[in-house]
């Protein structure tokens, strides 16, 4: 049996398999049928709401970008590379261009993980392929946008990102919906391969809507000396979101850092986790999560697995409950499998401290200003290694949400 049909078989068997975390979504309620849109040039794209995209970090003028990818429902509108050595294609095109790419498909995200991975295989709807050739360094971030337009659509994408030896790749992915009322499902499989001494920064800004369910499934394999910096920002309401990206630090000195900033709203269910597996000496992993709740239930998970000696990993989760009936459940886990691992975690969930509010009031800030200042500070995570334009995007997203929060 060939690899391909074997993958399909496994997917079929997992069609009904519920996910380990998150509420179970009835896939029957969604369809993959949507109009086929033709390709469009940047600056000429009329199918998307520019502002909603910009708030998700995607600038359709393509300014200060090393490439752009835009997919609406199942149609790839635009896939263009603008820097030598940085490739941007649809996954379908890439699979045709590079037969070897099969080797990267479903290698670190098992196709039979759950019904969502299965349906991404069985009802595959493209996705992006981004690759930095050996030694290439993206001057600007590559932007990728996954956009939901059709009511009841299930967008099932499979993305592959490869940073070849010694390369450096910055990516910003913005996800947004066409209208706030849209009911839809987004399933996004992403597999990242970071070769020797390469680096990927991946910044994902989610700008969904109240009736959207989201099930990303992603994993990263980091070889010797490689660095993975994963930033996740979700500051808008979403009906149901569950993700649990995994990083495998497989080579000596591999490093990964997860920063997540999320806001939970009434009626929203968020289950945000990440897992780091450290299986080579001198590997490092750090996970930092800031969760704010104004209602609804937010779960933040973190699991660090230390498989060999001489690794170092830390997990930090802080939760801030702004309104009375919000809930934040923080579940940090450390799994040290041998002697000589250095792993720690820190978790704190609370409300805004009156003492801090008064402190700022004593400096002349009104109570509202003091609260806003504390919330802004809470959401501020020092992120190093990010290009300034992406840092600005994150700050911008935070600023926007502050206004709606307070």
């Amino acid at each position, binding site marked *: 049996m060939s690899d391909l049909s074997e993958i399909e078989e496994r997917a079929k068997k997992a069609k009904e398999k519920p996910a380990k975390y998150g509420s179970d979504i009835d896939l029957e309620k969604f369809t993959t049928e949507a109009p086929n849109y033709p390709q469009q040039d940047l600056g000429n794209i009329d199918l998307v709401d520019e502002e909603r995209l910009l708030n998700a970090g995607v600038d359709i003028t393509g300014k200060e970008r090393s490439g752009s990818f835009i997919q609406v429902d199942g149609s790839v509108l635009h896939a263009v590379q603008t820097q030598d050595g940085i490739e941007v294609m649809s996954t379908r095109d890439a699979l045709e261009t590079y037969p070897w790419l099969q080797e990267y498909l479903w290698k670190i995200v098992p196709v039979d993980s759950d019904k969502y991975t299965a349906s991404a295989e069985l009802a595959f709807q493209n996705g992006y392929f981004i690759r930095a050739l050996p030694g290439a360094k993206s001057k600007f971030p590559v932007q990728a946008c996954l956009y939901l337009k059709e009511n009841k659509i299930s967008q099932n994408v499979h993305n592959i990102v490869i940073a070849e030896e010694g390369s450096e790749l910055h990516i910003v992915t913005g996800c947004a919906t066409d209208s706030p009322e849209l009911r839809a499902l987004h399933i996004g499989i992403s597999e990242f391969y970071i070769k020797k001494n390469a680096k990927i920064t991946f910044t994902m800004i989610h700008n969904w809507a109240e009736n959207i369910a989201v099930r990303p499934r992603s994993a990263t394999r980091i070889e010797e000396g490689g660095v993975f910096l994963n930033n996740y920002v979700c500051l808008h309401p979403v009906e149901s979101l569950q993700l649990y990206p995994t990083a495998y630090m497989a080579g000596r000195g591999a490093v990964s850092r997860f920063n997540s900033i999320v806001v939970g709203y009434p009626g929203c269910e968020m289950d945000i986790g990440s897992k780091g597996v450290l299986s080579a000496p001198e590997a490092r992993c750090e996970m930092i999560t800031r969760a704010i709740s104004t209602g609804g239930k937010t779960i933040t998970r973190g699991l660090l697995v230390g498989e060999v000696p001489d690794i170092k990993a830390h997990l930090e989760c*802080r939760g801030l409950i702004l309104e009375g009936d919000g809930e934040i459940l923080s579940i940090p886990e450390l799994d040290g499998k041998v002697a000589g691992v250095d792993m720690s975690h820190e978790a704190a969930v609370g409300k805004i401290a009156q003492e801090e509010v008064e402190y700022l*009031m*004593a*400096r002349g*800030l*009104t109570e509202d*200003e003091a609260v806003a200042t504390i919330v802004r*500070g*809470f959401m*501020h995570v020092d992120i190093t290694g990010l290009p300034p334009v992406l840092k600005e995007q994150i700050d911008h997203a935070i600023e926007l949400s502050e206004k709606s929060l307070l």
Partner: protein
Amino acid sequence: MDNIGQKVLEVNNLTVTINGNTLLEHIFLEIYEGETLMLFGENGSGKTSLLMTIMGLGPYKIETGSIFFKGKEVTHLPPSERAKMGIGIMFQRPPTIRGLKVREILELIGHNSTDPEELAESLNFGSFLDRDLNLGFSGGEIKRAELLQLLAQKPDLALLDEPESGVDLVSISLVGEAIRKLLEKDVHHRRRKKAGLIISHSGHILDYVEADRGCVLVNKTIWCMGNPHEIIQGIRKQGYKGCLTCQK
């Protein structure tokens, strides 16, 4: 008395409780423009509680009495109003505010009219501008961060809670210098406008900052208004209980 300035602070017959326990009783205080008053008292005597109450902070309950600032009653105003009128406070144990950079709080306080870099240089604090406020600061660093904020605020009345405690010898001269600047100690006393109320347990701060008067908080109330040097010497000889007997 030599002082010709306006009354800046007036505390009238203040009685304060917390959870039903009386902390302060029948407190009377007056501070004039340009004047510095030292408040001595042993640990737990209620010095911090008094300062916090003057600023409108904390869980303290005012049972009787009133507080006037520059002739206006502020007894029940929120701290932000008092700050805007010109009262500033240096906390003994300020909270940590994660994610708020020292630079940002200075900009907020100074309404972007003060240059944080320049201000921080004067306190040898430039390298702390991009640190989270009070996060992991040592005793001396906390004091310097507090004073920086007050220098940005430029209050007419500075309430300083144990500015010298926990500060090493190198930092203490920096701290003393900053307080002198805050209280316009280099301005001739007749033209000096800034007033201060400084809490001290040990009195060491007097080696760095001149004070005009001193008083002692014992048994929930104020005793022995007088020369601050004489008072601290008396305390060093006879302890705080000595104040009670000497008064009688």
